[in-house]
């Protein structure tokens, strides 16, 4: 891994984040009405003093470019503004909610990739076998089911018919003071349904993608060579073929992070998972724009970081890419 490349990528990521900040700034001003009122939230309770202090803080009486400068400067210092509904700094609100969202998204992604690739590899062994048919049907169904509806169906199933998983929240109230291990297990227990709900769509896609990718790789010379030298079927599939088929899977995983976050938003509201999605939803209902914009900024930041990591990781996976920029 060469350093100049890394710096270039980091700089580009920062540029994208700056873009999001500028977008946020103009969105607030494009909204109909006085920006100070928009920022205070349309709860009708904003006093004239409060509006005055907002105008002061955001420099709303100054020229637009100065306002933009102030806004960017504040965010660069980690100040995402004040939520007038929650009466807390937005950075603090979001800080509490990042970890549940990242936990949910990563668990779903890992579940989807591991199960999806496994199904795809099994299917690729027999391109016309029953497993292939299953993957084809399953991926079409997985694409067509609304994720929030899957969640609701699972809640009905697990709340009334087969109550083995909790269907709401992240931690049982009675375990709030328990030890770290008990609490972690309880969180995992609560995580099962939301993560699975979110994973289903992507699981289907990864199964289909890895089947296609494996079929291509399995026809290549080095797989024939591996078979000829007497490697076991498992070694051929998982060591020789999968490593080469992994690149497109990795690319898609990186590209999909944005849509995964969008899905997490819906899943969180369905399962009352205390992440950024439920925060965004509450903020939108109250028209609490500083919080909404903060969530948009941080969520985009997560996507930028994910893209950066993907990019770096396929340089690790594919030695041919190393040293290129």
């Amino acid at each position: 891994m060469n350093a100049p490349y890394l710096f270039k990528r980091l700089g580009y990521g920062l540029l994208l984040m700056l873009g999001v900040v500028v977008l946020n700034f103009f969105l607030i001003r494009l909204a109909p009405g006085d920006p100070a009122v928009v920022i205070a939230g349309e709860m009708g309770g904003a006093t004239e003093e409060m509006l005055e202090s907002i105008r002061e803080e955001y420099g709303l009486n100054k020229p637009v470019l100065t306002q933009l400068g102030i806004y960017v400067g504040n965010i660069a210092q980690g100040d995402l503004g004040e939520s007038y509904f929650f009466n807390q700094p937005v950075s603090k609100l979001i800080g509490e909610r990042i970890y549940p969202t990242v936990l949910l998204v990563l668990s779903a992604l890992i579940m989807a990739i591991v199960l999806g690739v496994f199904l795809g590899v099994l299917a690729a062994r027999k391109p016309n076998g029953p497993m292939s048919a299953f993957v084809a049907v399953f991926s079409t169904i997985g694409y067509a089911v609304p994720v929030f509806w899957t969640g609701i169906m699972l809640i009905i199933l697990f709340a009334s018919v087969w109550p083995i998983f909790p269907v709401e929240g992240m931690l049982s109230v009675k375990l709030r003071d328990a030890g770290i291990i008990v609490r972690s297990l309880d969180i995992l227990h609560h995580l099962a349904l939301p993560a699975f709900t979110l994973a289903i769509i992507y699981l289907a896609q990864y199964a289909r993608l890895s089947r296609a990718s494996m079929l291509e790789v399995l026809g290549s010379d080095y797989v024939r060579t591996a078979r000829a030298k007497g490697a076991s079927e498992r070694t051929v599939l998982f060591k020789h073929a999968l490593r080469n088929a992994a690149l497109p899977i990795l690319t898609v995983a990186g590209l999909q992070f944005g849509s995964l976050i969008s899905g997490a938003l819906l899943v969180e509201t369905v399962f009352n998972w205390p992440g950024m999605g439920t925060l965004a939803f509450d903020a939108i209902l109250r028209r609490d724009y500083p919080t909404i914009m903060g969530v948009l900024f941080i969520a985009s930041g997560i996507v930028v970081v994910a893209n950066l990591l993907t990019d770096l990781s396929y340089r690790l996976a594919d030695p041919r890419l190393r040293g290129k920029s």
Partner: protein
Amino acid sequence: MADPSNAEGQKMAQEPQQEFQAESPLLEAWRMYRRNIPALFGTVMLTLIIAATLYGTLFYTGDAFDIVWAPHEAPGMTPEFPLGTDYLGRDLIAGLLTGGGPTLAVGAAAAALTMVIGITLGALAGFYGGWVDNLLMRITEFFQVLPALLFAMVLVTLFSPSLTTIAIAIGVVSWPQTARLTRAEFLKIKQLEYVTAARAIGAKNKRIIWKVILPNALPPLIVSATLTVGVAILFEAGLSFLGLGDPNVMSWGLMIGANREYILDAWWPVTFPGLAIFFTVFSVSLIGDGLNDAFNPKLRER
């Protein structure tokens, strides 16, 4: 499967000179498509769904917002309301029939907008290359970084939650993939001989882009447009489910969202609209797969 191909064979035998003529790619694609049973099934299913949402209310009268019966009447208990009623006592069949129209209309409009933005930007980037390509691709990447649903939520909240705003919001967040696909096709096609030939006889850039390259890039774009319709429908449903749709327009997503508090008392008010969304997107995606197979017969094995 065997029957149509036999008929094909007989037709060929009757007109042997046809065999050597190059066939229009569209005609060939249609020939593939009509033998694809899942795709035909999807086409019929989608046609039925569209017909039901367009004309269903002619036969089945009743306003979806009217409270007509006791709340949470189970399906099959009352002959007048075969699918039961929701938490307020509103007829579910009326909701399903009137709620499909907005969902489908927003889905189609949003997909159209997605294609217009995506194809225009992708075509310009792929054709001109250089700084145009660089700039447009940076913009595309920027929009791919924004979590689409969240951004659409912000747009709908900032402006009014009308069907038009929702369609525009979905279009604005969904175009990057189309742009990338169009760009890739343009990069590939612009090097082919017939483009050079068109240039040699003096065709202007505008003509080469829209009249020479675009028609040849259409097959993958048509497939992608179909899939975009499905995604847009899911998007609309998600926004309405969150209560960000137009509250005065019944839609499948809204039905699920309105009844979600009571799912443990009554499963039917959320289950049926969800199935309606599922079958709509499912049929759209079967059509998309069918078109894909028809345009790329070689890829069919995958």
